[in-house]
């Protein structure tokens, strides 16, 4: 391994030995289109080289090939496979036009494009799911939420019944980097976490990196959830829509200038409050509860070598209890991306983006009024190069820079209120990263991806920064002026992945990755809450660091009809934060006095068996895992189970599509209950009962299991118009899964106590109507 590293490292810093490859190697490039529009991420297999290549977002591909005869094999979902041979003897353009495969267009089945786990690619610990696949998973309220769909995959766990929160490989929900078209989302949930911010109609696909994150990603400890949104149609106008029990959606796509530019705009609004208004109970029908999302994207082709992409997102939740209480929270995002091809081998991608999350609480009782406002804003600049230095070598390098502004809390009040205005200090920081990553095909079947990321997190003034002793007492306060650097945390994050092809159908992979995180989410609840606060590193709050080692075995059977793989991992985590007992979590000026830091470890084994082709498709997934924390001041300083520790998790998804009007799907999930703290006793004070706790998270919630069923019915197809009805039944056998277990004095007999299980969803049927023209 060392000699490999020694070979790669000079590559990072020296000029590239192009000329060495110049002889006998020619560049073949071209476009893959549907005849009308470019197709991105189409897989191209070329005889004579091991690696598959993929088209970029412009439908462009490029490969360096030795002289001689090569067969190109192009596959894309919804299109007929195309094979073509080419005698390579000079640099040349070769374009492909794929023919739509009408039989598979509306199919649930997913074949190669998104889903093929590339045996020869060193990248491991990734799961990909396209919206087409999500169609084959019955989901609650019929809402095809991609963040819920991925919870059926190994190593990715649901943070709570019906919720969109996610734990990946023992990490917490604030340790996932959630990206919407490359722009981070700080709070990716709606309605107390029951929905994600991703409108299913606007999503193209998701890639989840559980380990071995490519070096261009940084800033979160446990995973990258890379969600790509749909792009517009440069040829013709299209309308997609859906009407469901909970929400309605509408998407418009079309050209701005034919063949050159396109737009897409997609909206979703829930109308739970419309149902509320129907209630005859006047105490209920004045309440407000809804959320909406608007996604927009425009693509402009500027000549053959340049492309501009603009994306925007706006989403908010509103919750109101009559006129007394109102809560509004949401995300706003915008980005402008410029893709430029310097040459057939070198391209650059430059992005400027904004992302903001804000939360507003307003209380007006008639006697008192108070508003609480908090916000986090990021301005990001990214500049990334992609260089195909040879047929065997790809290089990526670049930088990114984020300016964070965190406004932790501002209280305002008007008139004769009981409250004083308060404005907690805003926090400013600059998060810089430079990275380089090299993917090298050392010999046939032997590939290495080596990367290095240097992150530098600078805390900036102005502001007062606390120094705190281990007991939480303030030792000193340091004051900094505007723009002054308070402290910079440097971290080197090496990333290494190796794959070895045993034969055409089997490979083994290993990887090591270090991640750091400087924006911390300390949440003492399980589901995403609008009030969740992001805390930047400070003099006392050190960067979180994780090191993860993984190894895996991958196998395809029967011409890629079946896939089996197993991965294991061991992860250590440093500077994991938790609140002290009885912490005041609101006053952010003193937050350092209220938190504790410790370490964590997580390890596990993940199995996945998948059937990818045929009328019957689906997968079986099993995860065996453990995740623990050790924080001085909690649980007597001993190791304890993290809340999300679940020993066993099994899930299966089955879809049956005979290619006729009806298609069916089912999923079943089983997992060990979460680790939890239950009382070890009780005592009486002031005439009421209180509960006594001994050790943390030493109990288990009852095991969780659930069956969901789904069916799609295609309605009559007319020219340019298709529609379908989707039915789903969540928790089909009505298992009373425990959402929470609480303890209280018995209502019938206050002299005894009882444990009460709260179940949220039992038999949730739903139906929705979707159309397209």
């Amino acid at each position: 391994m060392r000699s490999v590293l020694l070979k790669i490292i000079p590559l990072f810093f020296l000029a590239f030995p192009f000329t060495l490859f110049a002889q006998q190697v020619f560049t073949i490039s071209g476009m893959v289109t549907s005849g009308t529009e470019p197709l991105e991420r189409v897989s191209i297999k070329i005889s004579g080289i091991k690696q598959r290549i993929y088209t970029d977002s412009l439908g462009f591909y490029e490969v360096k090939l030795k002289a001689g005869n090569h067969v190109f094999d192009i596959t894309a979902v919804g299109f007929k496979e195309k094979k073509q041979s080419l005698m390579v003897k000079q640099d040349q353009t070769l374009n492909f036009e794929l023919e739509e495969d009408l039989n598979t267009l509306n199919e649930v089945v997913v074949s190669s494009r998104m889903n093929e786990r590339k045996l020869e690619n060193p990248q491991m610990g990734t799961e990909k799911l396209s919206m087409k696949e999500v169609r084959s998973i019955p989901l609650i309220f019929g809402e095809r939420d991609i963040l819920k769909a991925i919870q059926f995959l190994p190593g990715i766990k649901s943070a709570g019944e019906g919720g969109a929160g996610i734990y990946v490989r023992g990490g917490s929900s604030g340790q996932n980097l959630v990206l919407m078209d490359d722009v981070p989302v700080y709070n990716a949930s709606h309605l107390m976490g029951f929905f994600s911010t991703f409108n299913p109609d606007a999503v193209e696909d998701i890639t989840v990196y559980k380990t071995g994150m490519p070096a261009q990603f940084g800033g979160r400890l446990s995973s990258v959830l890379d969600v790509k949104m749909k792009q517009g149609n440069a040829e013709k106008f299209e309308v997609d829509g859906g009407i469901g029990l909970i929400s309605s959606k509408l998407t418009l796509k079309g050209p701005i200038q034919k063949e050159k530019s396109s737009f897409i705009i997609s909206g979703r609004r829930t109308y739970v409050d419309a149902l509320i208004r129907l209630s005859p109970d006047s105490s209920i029908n004045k309440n407000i509860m809804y959320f909406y999302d608007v996604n927009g994207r425009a693509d402009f082709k500027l000549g053959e070598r340049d492309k501009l992409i603009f994306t925007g997102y706006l989403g908010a939740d509103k919750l109101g209890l009559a006129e007394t209480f109102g809560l509004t929270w949401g995300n706003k995002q915008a980005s402008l991306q410029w893709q430029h091809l310097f040459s057939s081998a070198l391209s650059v991608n430059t992005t400027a983006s904004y992302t903001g999350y804000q939360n507003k609480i307003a209380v007006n009782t008639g006697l008192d009024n108070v508003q609480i406002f908090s916000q986090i804003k990021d301005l990001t600049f990214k500049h990334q190069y992609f260089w195909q230095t040879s047929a065997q070598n790809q290089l990526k390098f670049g930088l990114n820079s984020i300016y964070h502004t965190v406004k932790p809390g501002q209280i305002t009040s008007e008139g004769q209120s009981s409250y004083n205005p308060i404005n907690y200090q805003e926090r400013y920081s600059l998060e810089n990263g430079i990275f380089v990553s090299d993917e090298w095909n050392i010999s046939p079947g032997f590939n290495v991806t080596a990367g290095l990321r240097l992150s530098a997190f600078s805390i900036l003034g102005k502001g007062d920064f606390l120094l705190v002793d281990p007991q939480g007492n303030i030792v000193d306060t340091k004051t900094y002026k505007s723009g002054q650097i308070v402290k910079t945390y440097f971290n080197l994050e090496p990333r290494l992945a190796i794959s070895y092809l045993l034969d055409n159908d089997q490979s083994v992979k290993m990887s090591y990755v270090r991640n750091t995180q400087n924006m911390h989410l300390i949440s003492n609840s399980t589901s995403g809450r609008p009030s969740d606060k992001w805390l930047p590193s400070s003099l006392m709050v050190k960067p979180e660091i994780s090191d993860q080692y993984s190894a895996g075995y991958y196998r395809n059977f029967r011409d890629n009809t079946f896939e089996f793989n197993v991965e294991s991992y061991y992860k250590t985590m440093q500077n994991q934060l938790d609140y002290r007992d009885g912490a005041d979590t609101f006053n952010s000026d003193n937050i350092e006095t209220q938190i504790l830091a410790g370490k964590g470890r997580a390890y596990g084994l993940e199995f996945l068996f998948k059937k990818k082709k045929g009328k019957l498709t689906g997968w079986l997934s099993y995860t065996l895992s453990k995740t623990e924390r050790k924080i001085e001041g909690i649980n007597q300083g001993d190791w304890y189970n993290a809340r999300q520790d679940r020993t066993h998790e099994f899930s299966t998804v089955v879809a049956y599509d005979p290619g006729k009007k009806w298609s069916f799907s089912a999923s079943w999930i089983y997992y060990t209950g979460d680790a939890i703290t239950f009382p070890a006793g009780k005592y009486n004070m002031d005439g009421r009962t209180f509960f006594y706790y001994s050790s943390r998270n030493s109990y288990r919630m009852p095991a969780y299991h659930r069956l969901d069923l789904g069916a799609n019915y295609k309605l009559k197809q007319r020219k340019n118009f298709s529609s379908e009805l989707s039915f789903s039944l969540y928790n089909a056998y009505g298992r009373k899964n425990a959402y929470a277990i609480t303890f209280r004095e018995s209502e019938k007999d206050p002299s005894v106590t009882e444990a009460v299980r709260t179940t949220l969803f039992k038999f949730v049927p739903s139906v929705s109507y979707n159309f397209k023209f």
Partner: protein
Amino acid sequence: MMEKKYTLNPAFLLVALLFLLTGCEDVITLKLDEPGDQYVIEAQITDQLKGAQVALSKVKNFNADNHFNGQSGALVSIEDESGTPYILPETSTKGIYRNDLLKGIPSKAYKLKVQIVGKTFTATSIMPQKVVAQNAFAFELSLFDGPRLFTHVTYLDPVDRENYYRFFEYVNGVYTKTITVTDDEFTNGKLVKQMLWPNEFTEETKLKKGDEIKVEFLNIDKNIFKYWKSVKDGALGSSGNASPVNPVSNISGGAIGYFSAHTIQSIEYTVK
């Protein structure tokens, strides 16, 4: 403020539950550990006569009854700043120790000492200066269950110091069991109209015309505020928080509970 902040989250959940879900509650049986040998102390001295009382008990098994598990035979004393210890003899109720003549003075420190079978527990509390409760009244608000009357208490928070408060509400002589504590982090120097929440949002807890309401208004010290605030992190038995913990005690020696020197005022009104 503090009070509101801690009660909002379950409120959201409640709303979500009402409209979205087919939620239900069932009483279940769990196998829980034995608590071991754990003492609980609830000790107080007030600025009134008959206010000095210590309740000494032990944690009981979850499946036992809820009656007070009083512990006899302890030597209990409260010491004032001059170092004079006042003994609190055990009363006829097992585990209750009282000295009816002992009365505290605001701004003075008091020291508790409890000795029982080889164990010694000590704690200190400073009785805060008195803040006058001005008024108590009912005010109607519509929250999650329609219009409802809430008791409000007004007081002028002194601007020159940190203040901590606790409220007890009695409806027709019955304690509502709601724990209300607050500080002046957001209300320093203000005329505060503190709202008192019901223990549960049920029909029975709605205030009705003619109800006799009594509010006890306590000025407590910072440690006691912290104790009650941390009670909300778990000791009430709800697992809304990820990991419930025992409240932060000001007693050293390993007991659960608190020792509070506080002032106490009563204020009454009738719902019209």
